[in-house]
């Protein structure tokens, strides 16, 4: 096409494609401890720079520095490290189970564990979470049993979704974790609605929701920020900027010209850009935003700058669109390695303890999987009753569904599948 030669259209360019050297020079960094921590009641219009800088607490040597240092008890940090490590080990094991044909699909969160774990730990159990599909750390930090998660992945007889959802689309009413949708960003404005109701009822619970930077392109993102701003809803809206939406670089979601956090001030919402691989910084920023929400100071948009170290899903092969092993060059490192280094520096952790913990967690995941499979797998019984297909669409089953259920039963007995 000769037209290409004349086109003046700007197209965002990924910094490195296969065969090229990884290049993260585009990522704007602030030194650890350099960003001021405003009062939680600060007006959004007065703290616009928070959406452009990068809040960091852990420096390159693993020291916690600066005004955002949350001063957590070492025991608390060890819990955070355990949740993150468990998330990663769980992910690795489920990935292998998918490759072995034991589950149909899986999505890992490798490299992004601090986002879910630190944020969940900075919130209260009564706060309602509206996750995306890469937030398994929320489930783990909220204490959802691994067996329950695994039964969902297996669509087996103890699947919380009764076989209706793709693997990883968990929910937990008791754990205050909303049902995950496969449609992107739909949960973002729903979280705002939940928070509006909390405010109407005069309760001090808040809602938090997560989307990827790619999903921020959806109209739902705009609706969420608009409604959050108009009603000053007690909500924390999180954009996990892991740089990639499958093969699409974050520049195609608008990240090339300005940070995602900077969209907050555009709506009159506090925007904070934080090092998403720094457990302490993520915790501190979330705690700050939660206090704002609870004291009526308004919603916060947090951009968590991180890197999707793994493939998008088990159906994806990133070697086809990005530089090989580029995550090893990511300037913000690995969240588990960094928290571990910090704890060792505090004298509260060691390589030996880390290895022992990893072995314990491997064993926990293995025994949980063994237990989960007793409730059925994709290939071996027991299986869910297919009648369940027709239930829970309405509170009471209407006549046309009763008829269709009867037809399905007849069809199954005809084909000998009763």
């Amino acid at each position, binding site marked *: 096409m000769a037209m290409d030669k004349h086109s003046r259209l700007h197209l965002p360019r990924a910094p490195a494609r296969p065969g090229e050297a990884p290049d993260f020079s585009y990522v704007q960094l602030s030194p650890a401890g350099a960003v001021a921590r405003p009062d939680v009641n600060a007006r959004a219009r007065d703290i616009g720079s928070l959406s452009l800088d990068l809040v960091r607490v852990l420096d390159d040597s693993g020291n916690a520095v600066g005004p955002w240092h949350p001063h957590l008890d070492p025991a608390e940090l060890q819990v955070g490290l355990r949740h993150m490590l468990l998330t990663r080990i769980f992910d690795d094991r489920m990935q292998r189970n998918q490759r072995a044909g034991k589950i149909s699909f899986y999505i890992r969160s490798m490299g992004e564990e601090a986002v879910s774990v630190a944020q969940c730990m900075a919130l209260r159990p009564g706060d309602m979470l509206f996750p995306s599909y890469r937030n398994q750390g929320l489930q783990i930090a909220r204490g959802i049993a691994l067996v329950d998660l695994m039964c969902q992945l297996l669509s087996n007889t103890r699947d919380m979704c009764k076989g209706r959802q793709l693997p990883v689309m968990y929910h937990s009413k008791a754990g205050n974790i909303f049902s995950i949708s496969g*449609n992107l960003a*739909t949960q973002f404005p729903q979280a705002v609605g939940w928070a*509006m109701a909390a405010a109407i009822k005069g309760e001090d619970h808040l809602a938090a929701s997560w989307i990827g930077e790619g999903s921020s392109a959806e109209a739902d993102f705009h609706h969420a920020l608009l409604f959050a701003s108009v009603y000053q809803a007690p909500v924390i809206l999180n954009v996990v900027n892991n740089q990639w939406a499958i093969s699409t670089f974050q520049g195609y979601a608008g990240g090339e010209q300005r940070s995602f956090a900077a969209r907050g001030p555009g709506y009159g919402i506090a925007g904070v850009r934080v090092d998403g691989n720094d457990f302490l910084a993520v915790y501190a920023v979330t705690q700050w935003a939660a206090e704002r929400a609870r004291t009526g100071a308004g919603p916060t948009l947090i951009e968590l700058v991180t890197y999707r170290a793994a493939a998008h899903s088990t159906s994806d092969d990133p070697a086809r669109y990005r530089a090989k092993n580029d995550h090893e060059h990511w300037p913000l490192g690995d969240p588990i390695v960094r928290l571990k280094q910090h704890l060792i520096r505090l004298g509260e952790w060691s390589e030996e303890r880390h290895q022992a913990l990893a072995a314990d967690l491997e064993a926990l995941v293995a025994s949980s999987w063994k237990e989960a499979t007793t409730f059925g797998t994709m290939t071996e019984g027991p299986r869910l009753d297919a009648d369940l297909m027709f239930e829970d669409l309405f509170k009471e089953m209407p006549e046309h569904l009763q008829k269709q259920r009867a037809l399905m039963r007849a069809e199954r007995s005809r084909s000998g599948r009763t």
Partner: protein
Amino acid sequence: MAHMNMIQALNSAMDIMLKQDSSVVLMGEDIGYFGGVFRATEGLQRKYGEHRVIDTPIAEGGIVAAAIGMSINGMRPVAEIQFADYIYPGFDQIASELARIRYRSAGEFFAPVTIRTPCGGGIRGGQTHSQSPEGIFTHVSGIKVVMPSNPYDAKGLLITSIEDDDPVIFFEPKRLYNGPFDGDASKPAVPWSSHPKGQVDEGYYKVPLGKADIVRTGAEVSIITYGTMVFVAAAAAAAANIDAEIIDLRSLVPLDVDTICNSVRKTGRCVVAHEATRFGGFGAELLSIVQEECFWDLEAPIQRVTGWDTPYPHAFEWEYFPGQARVAMALKAVMESA
């Protein structure tokens, strides 16, 4: 009992529900301070406050999504979409979220949201204020779809919809807000005060979903219809001196198949009528059901009366609208066959 037009009946339903259930909130564009562009929520914000009758931004997707979130947090939102023609920005939240939350969470979460929206033409609204998109929503599994044709039903159905634990899309044929309409716009408007269905109980009452109303019993043909077409069909049959049984479905999902089929088995002839477009419309579903269930009782092919498969044109409103002449032709065809 009091004389009420459909707007007053809907207002009364919301008034009662706001009063007796503190979890009920109204939300929508222009509904609060102003009372709604059709006045359906007039006076309710003054009565129940800005925190229960909430003005919203012009963002239908946001309105539906926020209503879903509120319902997950124990509220019973009644959201108004100002015109059914404007509902499409909220479609993903309705079809992919609202309709499926109970199902995908295996009953752990549910979303008792009612979406009220004026539909239909005959008010010089042109192609963006006249649509009848009910068939788009009846095709989505997991939502109930309701359309009243008179003030009495409107109030009872809306109360039932608000109390229902499943999501309901509540279509209001806006040509019927002020009076029954037989399809002849040249005649003087008839107010609801002169019609028995304009006599409305001032208190709490329910009209069940999934129960059709036999508006007129008849022996020669069954006319299956809803919304604006109830009165048009009745007038056309009367003018042709045909003893028609007129069935007002009132709710499309769930559908009262028994009432439909009992009638067709009795009369042996069937006309399906709606204002919405024809191709792939809800009438096609009604035809299929009648054909599947009543084939051996039919004396003639089923006839269908609908709007044309074009947008609703401003200048040709009455050529578009399925008025008495179109119904009469269908009645003639169904009576003459065999």
